[in-house]
């Protein structure tokens, strides 16, 4: 089924990483696992950013590259504008709380994505529409436990295991995150189903200075069960100091944003 492999958390991670430059590393003394994840997530909340990125979708027999600009306000609001390739240029995605709209210049219409489409792939990538909508799930839907410390690419990380709360609306049986101890960015995330089988793997690398802070700029989301299926997201620039409020994230804005 083409709806399979919902990588709904992937983009959460993307956003977390993209936004976590706001972290106050001095405050990271506490090693309570829940606190680490919450802190990373809180960093995303209430922060506004503008970034440019490219996304490469890789499949065994083809690959495709896209460029985009995105604006965000916490995890509740964001706007993504596709800038390349030509066919997709100008397409806008707007997320407001639990709803998502798509604006397509070709048809000059904004369409609300219905529930039945939420698990569909986003722009043909290994992310789903849901990944863009339910971004704070990692904090609120799981019990987090630090289960170890590892060094990845020279960064000291906590290995944090997330077990879903009994009634949390998440499909994963277990999530394991590797979060840098001092910088609080995520370097790896692995998603398992209820039988303990690894389904998705997200890896972050190429930590670079963006705006005023260092963040991993290259994210790779792999579909472990389908070799050769992966999506690579490369952050090209970030401005962590833009001035937007929730009014910016409107259907009107979808039509005019460039």
């Amino acid at each position, binding site marked *: *089924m*083409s709806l399979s492999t919902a990588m709904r958390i992937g983009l959460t991670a993307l956003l977390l990483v993209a936004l976590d430059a706001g972290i106050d590393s001095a405050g990271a003394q506490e090693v309570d696992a829940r606190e680490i994840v919450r802190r990373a997530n809180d960093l995303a909340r209430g922060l506004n950013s503008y970034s440019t990125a490219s996304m490469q*979708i890789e*499949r065994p027999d*083809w690959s*495709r590259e896209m460029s985009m600009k995105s604006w965000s306000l916490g995890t509740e609001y964001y706007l993504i504008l*596709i800038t390349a*390739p030509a*066919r*997709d240029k100008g*397409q806008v995605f707007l997320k407001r709380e639990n709803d998502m709209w*798509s604006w*397509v210049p*070709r*048809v*000059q*219409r904004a*369409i*609300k*994505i*219905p529930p*039945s*489409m939420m698990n*569909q*792939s986003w*722009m*043909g*990538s290994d992310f789903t529409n849901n990944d863009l909508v339910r971004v704070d799930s990692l904090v609120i839907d799981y019990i987090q436990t630090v289960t170890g410390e590892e060094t990845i690419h020279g960064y000291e990380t906590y290995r944090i295991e997330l077990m879903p709360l009994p009634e949390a609306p998440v499909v994963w049986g277990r999530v394991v995150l590797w979060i840098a101890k001092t910088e609080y960015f995520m370097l790896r995330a692995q998603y398992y189903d209820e039988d303990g089988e690894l389904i998705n793997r997200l890896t972050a690398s190429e930590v670079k200075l963006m705006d005023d802070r260092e963040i991993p700029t290259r994210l790779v989301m792999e579909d472990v069960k389908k070799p050769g299926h992966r999506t690579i997201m490369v952050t090209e620039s970030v401005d962590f100091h833009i001035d937007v409020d929730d009014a910016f994230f409107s259907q009107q804005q979808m039509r005019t944003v460039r």
Partner: protein
Amino acid sequence: MLWTLAWRNVWRNRRRSGLTLATILLAVVLGLLMRSMQYGSYDAMIASTVARGGHIQVHGEGYWDNKSIDRSIRADAATLGQIMTVDGVVDLVPRLESFALISFGDRTKPAAVIGTDPTVEHRYTALADRVVEGDYLAEGQRGVLLLSSLADYLGAKVGDEVVLLGAGYRGQTAADLLPVIGIFDLAMMGNLETGLAYVPLVAARELYAAPADQVTSLSVMLGDGDTAWATADILATMLGTEYEVMTWHETSKEVVQQIQSDSAGGIFMLGILYMVAGFGLLGTVLMSTMERRREFGVMNAVGLRKGRLATVLFIETLALVIVGVILGLLVSLPIIYWFHLHPIPVSGDLVKIFQDFNVPPFIPFALDPGIFVAQGLVVLVMALIVASFPIVSIRRLHIIRAITGR
């Protein structure tokens, strides 16, 4: 002379022979009509299955299990030409289909959007006849044909422009604004959770951002449906492993099973009918054997071997049955032929049932020679069984008792 004897005996008791003939004739006619109707309905089911999917479907490898537009194939003129050279292939129906959101006003519903060649599509599915409002699609036209329930949900009328939005080829955005050319009605089984829409093939490629010549399926139409398996093998070998080639038996397993189960039921009923007719025949044969016991005794006494005597009797019964079968065929043929040409239209609620089974609302009669041959053979086998009873009685014939009538 034995033949003469057999022949004259048949005519000796005309009324009895006539009744025997009538019994066989009735069995053959009823059996043929029943079977013809059954086969007719199977033909209709298969025809509707084949019309929608072709005798054979060619897809990209793995498409059937995972219907993604990314598993579509290139159906350029060379490929099509190559397929057309295969013996028995008479036509190809290219389709490019995937799911997209269809939106009008503030209503949005996912639907299967099928890109097809309007002319070829109509040739097989008579889609144009299903149009209840507006017009049918024209080749190269930018427009969409909506299923009536979908149009109702959206509140879209002919002439309105609806938005189609979805994932296109290789993850590209599939988006288009197309006018509703027509609204069609199609009786379908199952839920109406998803809608259905047709667009011309070119518009579908544009919508899904698929390259020219790209299709998700090629329905191969054959001159003779019976060659589907063989032709599929040829195509599979010819096209190689990047393609999957499936016959309608594989793509519509439930149709095959429905036909099988219904046919089994029909055969069961025919069995009963023939059993009843067989008993009638047996009664006649036994009577005639008993009546002529004395005659048999004499013939045996004057030197006719029992074996040959039994042969005569056997031939007699068989001759009668063959005549009965032939008469039955002669009577049935015009009836079946008439109904084959003029299928009985069903009325009222039955129309719905027929449509639910995706067949036209007619009681069709099949004119398959196989039915006639099979029925004839079945009756003959029954006759052979019945005709062997006199052989037993001849074997047990006691000459003296037979002659003296004791």
